[in-house]
């Protein structure tokens, strides 16, 4: 089971993801609501995995992913995308994302992707 940092600008989505991940036995070590906050929390908490929203204020998910990968090239980041953002997914994968989940979330899919990326 992993120590996970949840990054999303909406409280509702963070709460939903936390509930899903907690139900899968994971520990939520922190949450962030923008890209800058995500990079700072990553440095502070050193989580096993990050779930990262793409569209966020201040610094978007792709830039935050790049920032985190600069600090830790082995960082495991799963991008959260909305339907229709397939171009963003391509960009995220090029930037080092290990996986993606699509909004609206479905609990089994989220847990399956987390399991795949964590390699557990």
């Amino acid at each position, binding site marked *: 089971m992993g120590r996970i940092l949840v990054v999303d600008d909406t409280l*509702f989505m963070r*709460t*939903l993801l936390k*509930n*899903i991940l907690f139900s899968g036995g994971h520990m939520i070590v922190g949450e962030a609501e923008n890209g800058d906050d995500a990079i700072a929390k990553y440095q502070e908490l050193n989580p096993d995995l990050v779930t990262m929203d793409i569209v966020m204020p201040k610094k978007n998910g792709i830039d935050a992913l790049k920032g985190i990968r600069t600090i830790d090239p082995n960082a495991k980041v799963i991008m959260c*995308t*909305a*339907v*229709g*953002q*397939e171009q963003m*997914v*391509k960009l995220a994968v090029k930037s080092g994302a290990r996986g*993606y989940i*699509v909004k*609206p*979330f*479905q*609990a*089994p899919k989220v847990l399956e992707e987390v399991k795949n990326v964590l390699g557990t």
Partner: protein
Amino acid sequence: MVSVPVKIEDRGRWAVSKLSIEKDGLKASGDVNLDIPYRTIVDLEAKGNILSITAKERENQPYRLASVEKVLNVLKRQILLSCSAYRLSTFFMSPAVRGGVLAQNAAWEKGGIAVLKSGIWFFSQDHQICVPLADVASIELTKREVQGKDLDVVKVDHIEDTEVVTSLVLCPLTTLQVLYNFLKESTKSMDMDGAELDPKSAQVAMLVYSGMDTAAIENMLSISHKEVDHIYDALIGLGLAEVVVIRREVKLTTKGVRYITDATKV
């Protein structure tokens, strides 16, 4: 004329037969007599190795044929090319995107699109793909990069095994506009009729989609059971949800309390 081996459903049993694919229709004779002119066919459904063909004169009693995939593909293509449907020659890509990510091996295919009573069919020499109208989530006239150029396409999203699957149709803009209008009209029954959900109801709907049960929804949104019930009623009323289980909440009677008290005595 080509003759193919099929089984034809006849009064609850499957009869082995030879089906002739003729210029103007499908014909069989022998144990079961069949004559289906293509121009009378208004709907086509494929489930596994069974093909249901609905003809005008017996709309409530479709013909059902079973055969191997290769034969069914020939039949489907022939029917789609000649039946009574809104039909266009197009390039299409289906599926183009599955679950938000580009489908592997997605490629533009030269073929056609046929809109029948219950589904949109994309068909080419090698493939026949059906998108049931009831599963269509959205239809949009948009642009996609094709060979380095931004071209107009019609994007059809549908739900398949809980995933959103996108198909794209490419043809001249004037034709696309007609196709878009026709598809919008064909799927009008799925529109929300202007009744948008309030933010709380939308959150409840999303939580239901995510697999949360009623207790989890109450906890997450800090709302009462009564309020969740009220929102469920609204979702059901709008045709957005359906009841799958009615769960009871109980409290123990005096007898029950006594039983538990006794049971936990050391």
